[in-house]
């Protein structure tokens, strides 16, 4: 008798853990972002997602709740929290689903499931580099690498890291981010140096960074062309340094953002023995598959060539957010797997991008291309 009762209790407590919502939510904004190619900002009313999500997590959105064509919801990275009761996604029209989504009007309802997946791991004790004496002051350098619309899951990361451990003080961050996006929409020009290096000076030096800790944020942002560098005139406010690259050279460095990053890679990967600081460098990336594949290969080569030196990035140092087609988004359909190095052999195991990712450690990916 007692056995049955305790069994029931276990079942009941299991059923009460709500981590993910599925609701029809009102759209409050769905606007094409000025000066971009078919890129939209969608703001959705919901009080669960904005308060719970971690950058890198996503939602499944269905613009036609209850309808069968298109049948499946589409995954979108959570771009940012707008306020306690609204969150936003950033999307580029690239197919039937996003085309239909772009026609959704303010006041319409979309079906939202989320927040889903694992976001970026932003623990400051992550120890990106394996060397250094423990007596030194640890300086955390967060290097974000975005390709085009791949900025979406990364956008909230600096604020998320800064606010970590600052419970109950979220409002300032939210407002500041709001400003930056609005500025982008108004195409406000700031003093940008688009010389060959792609380097743009930030007006916010590390010393007067309001975070008051040892976090430094650096953004490498690339795309095909200028119009796909979203918020390019305002995004500096969140970073200590920003580097732009475009394939056609229309903005910043001409070429791959990955190549631009690797021009400076020794700044991040080599510790200065004489310095009183020990660098703890973490890389976070999201972008199209060829970009991520190139990035991962470059990091692998970097680690190989540094074998004898001290600057070897450990397995957690480079996190990448992968994109895939999902049917369920919660890990049951097994339609979105990626090959991960097996712990026991040279072989691989399949992991689910939606449930085990979408953020993975770059060095655990098996032949990602």
């Amino acid at each position, binding site marked *: 008798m007692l056995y049955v009762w305790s*069994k*029931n209790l*276990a*079942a009941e407590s*299991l*059923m*009460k*853990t*709500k*981590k*993910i*919502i*599925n609701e029809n939510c009102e759209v409050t904004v769905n606007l094409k972002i000025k000066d971009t190619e078919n890129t939209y900002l969608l703001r959705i009313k919901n009080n669960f997602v904005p308060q719970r999500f971690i950058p890198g997590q996503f939602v499944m959105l*269905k613009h036609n*709740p*209850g309808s*069968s*064509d*298109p*049948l*499946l*919801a589409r995954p979108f990275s959570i771009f940012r929290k707008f306020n306690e009761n609204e969150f936003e996604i950033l999307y580029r029209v690239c197919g039937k689903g996003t085309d239909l989504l772009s026609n959704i009007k303010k006041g319409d309802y979309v*079906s939202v*499931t989320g927040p889903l997946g694992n976001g970026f791991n932003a623990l400051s004790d992550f120890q990106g580099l394996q060397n250094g004496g423990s007596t030194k002051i640890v300086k955390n350098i967060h290097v974000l690498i975005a390709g085009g619309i791949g900025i979406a899951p990364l956008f909230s990361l600096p604020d998320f890291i800064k606010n970590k451990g600052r419970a109950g003080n979220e409002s300032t961050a939210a407002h500041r981010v709001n400003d930056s996006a609005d500025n982008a929409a108004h195409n406000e020009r700031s003093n940008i140096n688009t010389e060959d290096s792609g380097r743009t000076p930030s007006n916010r030096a590390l010393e007067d960074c309001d975070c008051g800790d040892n976090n430094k944020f650096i953004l490498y942002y690339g795309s095909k062309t200028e119009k796909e560098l979203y918020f390019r005139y305002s995004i500096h406010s969140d970073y200590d340094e920003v580097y732009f690259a475009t394939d056609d050279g229309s903005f910043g460095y001409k070429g791959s953002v990955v190549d631009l990053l690797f021009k400076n890679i020794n700044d991040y990967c080599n510790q200065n023995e004489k310095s009183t600081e020990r660098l703890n460098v973490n890389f976070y990336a999201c972008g199209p598959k060829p970009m991520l594949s190139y990035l991962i290969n470059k990091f692998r080569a970097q680690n190989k060539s540094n074998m004898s030196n001290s600057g070897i990035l450990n397995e957690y140092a480079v996190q990448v957010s992968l994109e*895939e*087609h999902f*049917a*369920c*988004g*919660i*890990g*049951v*359909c*097994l*339609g*979105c*797997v*990626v090959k991960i190095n097996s712990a026991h052999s040279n072989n691989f*195991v*399949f992991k689910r991008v939606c*449930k085990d990712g979408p953020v993975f450690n770059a060095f655990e990916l098996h032949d990602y291309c």
Partner: protein
Amino acid sequence: MEEKNSQDISMSVKLGRLLLKYPVMPASGTFGYGEEFIEITDYSLFGALVTKGISLEPSKGNEMPRICETPCGLINSIGLENVGFEKFKDEKIDFLKKFNIPVIVNFFGKSIEDYAIMAEKLSCIDGISALEANISCPNVKEGGRAFGTDPEIVYEITASIKNCSPLPLIVKLTPLVSDIALIAEVAEKAGADVISLVNTFPAASIDINKRKFKLSRGYGGLSGPAIKPIAVKLVNDVYKAVRIPVIGMGGISSWEDAVEFFMAGATSIAVGTGAFNNPYLIPQITSGIRKFLQENNFSSIYDIIGIVNN
């Protein structure tokens, strides 16, 4: 006229010896091992929990791409990825047992002997209420044709499973056969306790710009609303041919869809692809049907089962 209280309406059904409080369950392969959906929905209105198909050895499954969307449908070619019997026994069944809801374990084999061995092994695990044999997978020894397309093999598999296991046996049929009633009759004769149908329909989609199949294996199985009318017809064919109960499935996305399957002769129904968009679909179907029965002055789900043939 006296209106019935909706809670007085009997929703429980019997599938052979297996008693379900509610006649709605997830379809195998769309519910994992029960560990994911629990983060969104609760299982209290689920008639049963149905696992992803298990085989003796773990299976990695197919290369990507594994899924593609078609009008009102989804083609999948997952490749029967699963953790294998040992890991299921060690790591998955304990979680499923916790809910006090019948657990139906779907399984498959590469040969008839595999099915018998699996049935015997699964019967030794505590916490399994029924077995569901997936006979839609390829019979490797017979050139890869699905087991479920040959009546003699269906008989042999069903009989050998029943020989090895005391658990209620559900035989899940492939829809792509010329006479599904015959296959169902054979399974019944061989000792099946329940028939479930339909599995997905073999289907393909081609990317005309790449001039290639969209899925890595070329073809996969079609599910979703696109197959629903075909599934309703096949369920009715089987209902008319056998005395054992039928679990109906294929594109159910609403309680109205579910009622069609009951009226076609299903004693219970399962949802799969529909729950991807609406994780609350199972409880919503149960309450929708209950309301429908009440409004139409029925007192039990049994009042509408097979009603189109009465």
